[in-house]
């Protein structure tokens, strides 16, 4: 047992950090740090910087552009990415659709889609959730009927993140109307420029526009856009959801936000001293730091175990990463809101400079509102507890 990073691992961390702080556009990192929304151009610029370095999809097989890193290297990479406020490479491309195409796609599909996915020359979005099917995807109703040598898709998807930027959408649709539950569903790639697609923004409580409804009205898709076997799309979906847990704890992000909370709380006065000099506030921050340190160690333990696991299925212990990770992320947004205090009341989406100037407090409330989602999406924390109860405790 040796619980320290090796010199090689520390050197790797230094290399990653140097890259992040010198090659990723500074304005994108700054916006991310202070909580300003990112434009499509921002996300593309940051993704492309990583792609140029060969780090846009580190966990892909080397043949398709992956890095072949050890689990610890992946951990270090993710941590430094988040700690330096670098946006994650677009997850719909590299963590979701890419791995599915690598695992289930044809050679033609791999050639056609993967390079543009890797370089973010094409932007993907995820067509899974429906109004009647959230945590329970088996209830989905969108249909893809084979007709005249193509699929004709009808239905409605929702919570489709950044669909407004997307060139392509990977869709789960029912291809066998008789089959029950998870059976009879297929995984289909849909060009967002196809006639019959309508994207409607959903205004969320943080005031932002991150998610959308996507309507499919007789949308025609070539049969070769099917990934894997027809009616076996559930295999792809399960595989994809298992991959979602990469970086799910967002430890680096929480570290970064705690650093920022301390910085701002040292400037905000509460009575005759700074808020950070207030014992009670400082102890609340410290309590979150303790949880975060424990979670960091938990993450390393899960990584070490995963490296030894033969199974392809997600380690159920990673549900802890999701539960505690989301709780800690939410706790940091609550602390930031507390720092902002009465200055968080104004809603100034258009005129905020979001720097460390006058309007530093403006993103505090929107971030607090926005981060309520992290205990809901990707399988709510209640679902994660069900998973642990069943898979770990054997109830």
């Amino acid at each position: 047992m040796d619980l320290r990073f090796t010199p090689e691992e520390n050197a790797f961390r230094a290399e990653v950090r140097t890259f992040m702080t010198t090659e990723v556009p500074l304005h994108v990192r700054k916006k991310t740090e202070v909580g300003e929304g990112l434009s499509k151009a921002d996300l593309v610029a940051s993704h492309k910087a990583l792609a140029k370095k060969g780090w846009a999809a580190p966990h892909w097989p080397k043949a398709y552009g992956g890095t072949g890193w050890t689990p610890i290297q992946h951990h270090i990479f993710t941590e430094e990415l988040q700690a330096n406020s670098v946006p994650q490479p677009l997850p719909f491309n590299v963590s979701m659709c890419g791995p599915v195409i690598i695992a289930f796609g044809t050679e033609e599909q791999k050639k056609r889609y993967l390079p543009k996915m890797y370089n973010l020359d094409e932007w993907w979005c995820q067509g899974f959730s429906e109004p009647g099917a959230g945590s329970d995807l088996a209830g989905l109703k969108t249909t893809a009927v084979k007709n005249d040598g193509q699929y004709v898709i009808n239905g409605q998807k929702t919570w489709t993140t950044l669909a407004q930027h997307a060139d392509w959408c990977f869709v789960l649709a029912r291809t066998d109307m008789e089959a029950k539950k998870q059976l009879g569903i297929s995984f289909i790639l849909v060009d967002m420029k196809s006639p019959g697609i309508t994207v409607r923004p959903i205004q969320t409580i943080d005031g932002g526009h991150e998610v959308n409804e996507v309507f499919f009205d007789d949308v025609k898709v070539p049969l070769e856009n099917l990934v894997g076997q027809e009616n076996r799309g559930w295999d792809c979906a399960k595989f994809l959801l298992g991959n979602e847990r990469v970086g799910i704890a967002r430890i680096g992000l929480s570290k970064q936000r705690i650093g920022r909370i301390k910085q701002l709380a040292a400037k905000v006065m509460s009575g005759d001293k700074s808020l950070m000099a207030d014992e009670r506030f400082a102890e609340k921050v410290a309590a979150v730091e303790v949880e975060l340190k424990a979670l960091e160690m938990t993450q390393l333990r899960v990584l070490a175990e995963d490296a030894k696991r033969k199974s392809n299925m997600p380690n159920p212990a990673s549900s802890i990463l999701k539960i505690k990770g989301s709780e800690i992320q939410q706790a940091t947004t609550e602390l930031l809101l507390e720092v902002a205090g009465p200055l968080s009341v104004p809603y100034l989406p258009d005129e905020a400079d979001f720097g460390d100037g006058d309007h530093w407090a403006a993103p505090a409330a929107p971030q607090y509102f926005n981060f309520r989602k992290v205990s809901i999406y990707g399988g709510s924390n209640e679902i994660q507890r069900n998973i642990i109860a069943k898979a770990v405790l054997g109830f």
Partner: protein
Amino acid sequence: MDFDLSDDQRQIKDSVDRMLAAAYADLKTKAAAQKEPAGFSVGNWKQFADLGLLGIPFAEDHGGLGAGPVETMLVMDAIGRNAAIEPYLSTVVLGGGLLRHAGTAAQKAALIPGVIEGTHRLALAHQERQSRFDLADVSATARSDGAGGYILNGEKLVVLGGDSADTLIVVARIDGQRRDRAGIGLFLVGGTAAGVTRKGYATQDGGRAADITFANVKIGAEDVIAGKGSDGLASLEHVIDEAIAALAAEAIGAMAALHDLTVDYLKTRKQFGVAIGSFQVLQHKSVDMFTALEQARSMGYYATMMAAEPNAAERRRAMAAVKVQIGKSAKFVGETAIQLHGGIGMTMEYKAGHYFKRLTMIEMAFGNTEHFLRALAHAGGLIPAAA
């Protein structure tokens, strides 16, 4: 001890409930109202006036109902229940409260009738960039002009309803150092007076506020509410205590509505082939919401009872306790409701998010839970040490 409403009170409750339920039946109407110049529906405001609601706390001499904290509680509860955005708190409770407690007879006679008719709106400008939750932290200055009037300079932030109020009540320092309890004055300033610059904006909870600067604003003797030698802070504290009782009622209304919405959602929303309300974990969470709501409701009654307490120290101690309970319950009920709703709770197209955001802002208003918990502890708590 009697928790029943009188007939008059029940009538007020019924009328405000009915009026606001109709006005806020559709979120699209609310969105349209927010786009009106004042940031809320002037039509609704007229209905408040027509029902006599704007006159609740004022003396019958001025055309008011001469009613008290119970009646204010009923109106604020309805406002909370409907996530309504009319500036009742800023105009009637805060502005009107200071006029009631500290205004001269002439000031009352001049302003209160307009308030009651809905033609004149007030706003309280007390908060500053550095003041956070300390009411005595006042750096805006009022310099005597030697003729009973003052010259006002300084900046006030996040003045609720301040962007369109006809008259501002401004807290400014006449004497002493920033954070001194003595030397704080209260002044009436026209919203468009010379030297007043207002930057209005929407607030996170859908209301309106303004940052306001005062540059050599001249205040005549007739517009001084509390001048040199009077205890402006005591009046301010009393009004803030009344506002806390009012906010408690609003929060309770919002929590009750949000809890109802959540229970309904759990009973109708299906996942895995069953209503999600059949899951025991979700049932117990909604029970915990219910408990938090009922504990808050109890403290709301306590607030109503103590809002009129003449002993300021007792009143302040009680209101600190009220704000702590309200803040905790509001945070728990709001966050849990969003969690139980899942994605739909994150959208502005559904009412849950409106309640959640308002509850978040109420938790912070006039001091967050931490602030009042500390204030209560400093005051020795509610129960004396054993002898």
